[in-house]
């Protein structure tokens, strides 16, 4: 009867800690509504993979030899082999995004680029703390404020910290409404935040909407070929949305595909949340660095807008720069709310949405650029 208590006697304190972490993620998902579609599966997965001799993981059983576990199999096929899950998710995200506000005011594209600075600043801090360049780059990409990109980059760069990076990326995305106001107030004055912006959108032709995803794919592919899978799948989803003849596919991509992949992605990522990998001092460092990346992103965006204001007659509200991160649409909502708090007539939503979707494009380009450059180092 010894086998009945074998599980209990094999428990380690690290595994119990992971159950608690899993419980906290489930609590945040349900009670605080923080990215529930990912934090809940990740939380439950963290419990599943940290049960001693868990059958969801590959293991060697006495008399049976090597036995495959479902979560290890999902991780190996769905993520490790071809990054299929995060990439397929991009088709759905592309189908969800309306690039109209960006196309009608294309200079907002620049804010998406500027706000990626947080990624690189965090890479340097991580390197200073002793991480090798692959791990530092994977940690920095948390600043892309884009879960699938973070997972994909850390996988391609073979980082040892995929689990903590995924947890940090999704947790901080949910915390954007808390992190960004703090970072924005840190580097703006009340006068800055009160700047009003006229909204005079250029009308966007159907041809432009159709050509945009194709042209972005070609340009990004030519300049940063490593970004092509990320950008290409995002833009493929957007082309399905804009073409007007694939409404049923567009709806499927936006709802069913995204739901299915999200459901599996969360629980699959938990394969990298085994106690022996997760309960380390580095995990704490990564959580801290992830927060820093979001703060750096927001500050870089704001400072870039202030810099542009030196040359512009019609000033830009610097808060728009902070919307250049990819956390869509949370960041745009934060900026709109902050604008209204300063002046009830200060409506910044459409400008912020434009900068925010630009951040979506720039973050996937950043992911590809990092993969390309680090691969050459």
């Amino acid at each position, binding site marked *: 009867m010894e086998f009945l208590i074998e599980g209990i006697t094999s428990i380690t304190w690290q595994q119990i800690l992971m159950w608690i972490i899993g419980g906290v993620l489930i609590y945040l998902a349900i009670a605080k509504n923080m990215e529930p579609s990912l934090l809940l599966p990740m939380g439950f997965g963290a419990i599943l993979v940290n049960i001693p001799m868990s059958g969801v993981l590959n293991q060697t059983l006495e008399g049976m030899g090597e036995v495959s576990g479902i979560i290890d199999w999902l991780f190996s096929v769905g993520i490790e082999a071809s990054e299929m899950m995060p990439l397929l998710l991009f088709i759905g995200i592309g189908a969800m995004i309306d690039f109209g506000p960006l*196309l009608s005011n294309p200079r907002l594209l620049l804010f998406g680029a500027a706000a990626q600075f947080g990624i*690189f600043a965090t890479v340097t801090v991580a*390197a200073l703390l002793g991480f*090798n360049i692959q791990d530092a780059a994977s940690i920095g990409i948390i600043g892309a404020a884009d879960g699938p990109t973070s997972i994909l980059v850390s996988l391609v760069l073979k980082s040892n910290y995929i689990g903590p990076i995924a947890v940090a990326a999704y947790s901080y995305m949910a915390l954007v409404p808390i992190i960004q106001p703090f970072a924005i107030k840190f580097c703006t004055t009340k006068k800055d935040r009160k700047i009003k912006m006229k909204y005079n959108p*250029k009308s966007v032709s159907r041809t432009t909407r159709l050509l*945009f995803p194709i*042209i972005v794919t070609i340009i990004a592919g030519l300049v*940063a070929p490593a970004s092509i899978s990320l950008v290409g799948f995002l833009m493929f989803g957007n082309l399905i949305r804009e073409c007007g003849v694939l409404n049923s596919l567009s709806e499927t991509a936006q709802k069913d595909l995204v739901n299915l992949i999200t459901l599996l992605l969360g629980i699959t990522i938990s394969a990298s949340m085994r106690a022996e990998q997760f309960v380390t001092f580095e995990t704490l460092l990564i959580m801290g660095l992830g927060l820093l990346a979001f703060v750096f992103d927001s500050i870089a965006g704001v400072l870039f807008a202030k810099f542009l204001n030196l040359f512009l007659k019609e000033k830009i509200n610097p808060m728009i720069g902070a919307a250049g991160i990819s956390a869509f649409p949370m960041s745009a909502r934060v900026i709109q709310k902050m604008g209204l708090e300063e002046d009830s007539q200060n409506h910044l939503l459409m400008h912020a949405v434009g900068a925010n979707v*630009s951040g979506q494009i720039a973050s996937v380009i950043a992911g590809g650029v990092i993969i390309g450059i680090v691969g050459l180092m």
Partner: protein
Amino acid sequence: MNANVIKSLKLMGMGMAAIFLVIIVIYAAVIIMLRVTSDDKK
């Protein structure tokens, strides 16, 4: 200075330059598209 820190600074310079380059080219392409297709309003 640590080799990884030097690599990270190099990554910062090359990475931000590449991102801005791609975005500026996309920006130019969008401006051209908006001009060329201005008669074909949605």
